[in-house]
């Protein structure tokens, strides 16, 4: 089923999307917000530029964007998959609680801000290029992988990554020696079990964007984790 989004307001477009399950393809998308918010049983392909909060509260659906996406992709998403063949704006995966986001290009500021996990619900963001400042800000769970495949010569991360991080893991390709991390985090080379943990995500990334998986070797990856379960103990109150 194809939907022409040209000239449609976001509420009309989303009403149309929610009426159909199964495969949907949206053409001429231009800034309509909240596309497929809360959707569970559908596969949505978007041609054009979807608006902010694409796939917010996503509950199992699959979204694929042929182009760039704007801010807050996958805001508070619970399950499902979002694939962006391009760049995403700021705050991708904001407070994400499950599912996976794959981005072939770069992410803006605050990717993965306040992601969290609980038992089997473990959200994942894979960023093909570079990420802006405040990557994983207040991260409480889940996995963020930044591959640094961008070619514009800019550093893989902006400033202040992992500020307030107290859970989850960040994987960076490269030694990230020049990146300054807060003292409440620990940086180390990836271990075989770290790599095992992300192998299926790397394989899926390579499959989605047609990249040779053998380009990534274990030696390449740096892992950043909080250095205790309560790194900000007594920062505000004596707890």
């Amino acid at each position, binding site marked *: 089923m194809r939907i022409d989004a040209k000239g449609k307001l976001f509420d009309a477009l989303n009403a149309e999307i929610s009426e159909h399950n199964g495969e949907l393809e949206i053409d001429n998308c*231009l*800034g*309509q917000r909240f596309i497929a918010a809360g959707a569970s049983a559908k596969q949505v392909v978007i041609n*054009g530029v979807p*608006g902010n909060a694409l796939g917010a509260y996503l509950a199992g659906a699959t979204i694929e964007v042929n182009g760039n996406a704007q801010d807050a992709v996958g805001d508070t998403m619970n399950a499902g998959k979002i694939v962006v063949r391009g760049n995403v*704006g700021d705050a991708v995966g904001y407070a994400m609680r499950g599912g996976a986001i794959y981005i072939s290009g770069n992410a803006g*500021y605050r990717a993965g801000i306040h992601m969290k996990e609980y038992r089997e619900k473990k959200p994942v963001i894979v960023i093909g290029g570079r990420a*802006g*400042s*405040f990557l994983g800000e207040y991260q409480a769970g889940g996995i963020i992988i930044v591959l640094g495949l961008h070619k514009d010569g800019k550093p893989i991360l902006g400033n202040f990554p992992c500020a307030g991080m107290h859970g989850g893991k960040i994987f960076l390709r490269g030694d990230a020696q020049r990146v300054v991390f807060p003292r409440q985090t620990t940086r180390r080379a990836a271990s075989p079990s770290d790599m095992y943990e992300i192998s299926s995500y790397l394989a899926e990334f390579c499959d989605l964007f047609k990249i040779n998986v053998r380009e990534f070797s274990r030696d390449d990856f740096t892992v950043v984790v909080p250095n205790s379960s309560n790194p900000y103990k007594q920062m505000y109150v004596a707890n």
Partner: protein
Amino acid sequence: MQREGQVRIPSGCAISAMISTTGARMTGETIVKSMIPMHDRSNGLGGGFAGYGIYPEYREFYALHVFFDDPSAQYECEKYLKEGYEIVKSESIPIRKIPEITDVPIIWRYFVAPLASVLSRLQLDEHEFVARTVTKINSQFRGAYVFSSGKNMGAFKAVGFPEDVGRFYRLEEYAGYSWTAHGRYPTNTPGWWGGAHPFALLDYSVVHNGEISSYDANRRFIEMFGYRCTLQTDTEVIAYIADYLLRRQGLTLEELASVIAAPFWSELDASESVESSSRAYLRKVFPSLLLTGPFSIVLGFTGGVMALNDRLKLRSMVTASNRDVHYIASEEAAIRAMDPDARNVYSPAGGEPVIIKVEEGAY
């Protein structure tokens, strides 16, 4: 009617800009289009545009755009203007009457030149004289508000959604080498015509998405130099800061950006370059002009535009280009609405100014 505190207004706002580096003149139709996909970033309480290069036939004269509450306010204001200026043309700004725009004030345009005799008596250059005139009218003349005062440029603003404001002012009938636009979602003040963006003084204009938490500190500092913040709206102070630092202090645009979106001390301490020490110097000299809180702005000026985000990048901003035309907007969708084939889409970092200038002599 609900009052302050009884209604929660989530912050939004939309900005956009387009500029031809070869000075090619484009009608206002395209910039109006950019506001359509960003409709929900505004709430109908303000929209506006600034066009540069739109009055080539009067390029030597200051174009004053003025709102008047009533004819007596206009009479008093004109009497004052005639004491210092030759008024070469005085006309109402053409509008299209549409149901979306209501409570229309008297909207007038004057093309003026300061009288040489007055300038020499006061020993002022003409820019300073015009700036003082604007400040005086806006702070002391009841029912009169000058909302645009540059040469060969003009701001157009109203209460309404920006795409309606564009139709209201018939912007398709103007052609300029650069345009900026704003859709307003006021957070702290009720919407009124003067409070819409752009805020303009001389040829500087500012459109802004965000909220300046340092507003009062900035206002207290800038009012020491003769400016008067009459609107309680944070964007107004940014326009005056731009005028003060660029025109009166002679700073470059990069230096202006470095003052209002100063780098963190940790960033400055980590570098020993000459550039870092000069930026540290600026931070020390103008600490009261640091803007804190979220903002993305486009500053328009004769021959160019500058886009800038706050250093934490708490608002979105995207740039792109296609041949000689460069685009800036809060959302990529807005750029695609202006030009579906725009390329080089880029998200500037917080505090990283994007400066685009028209080739010298082409404007």
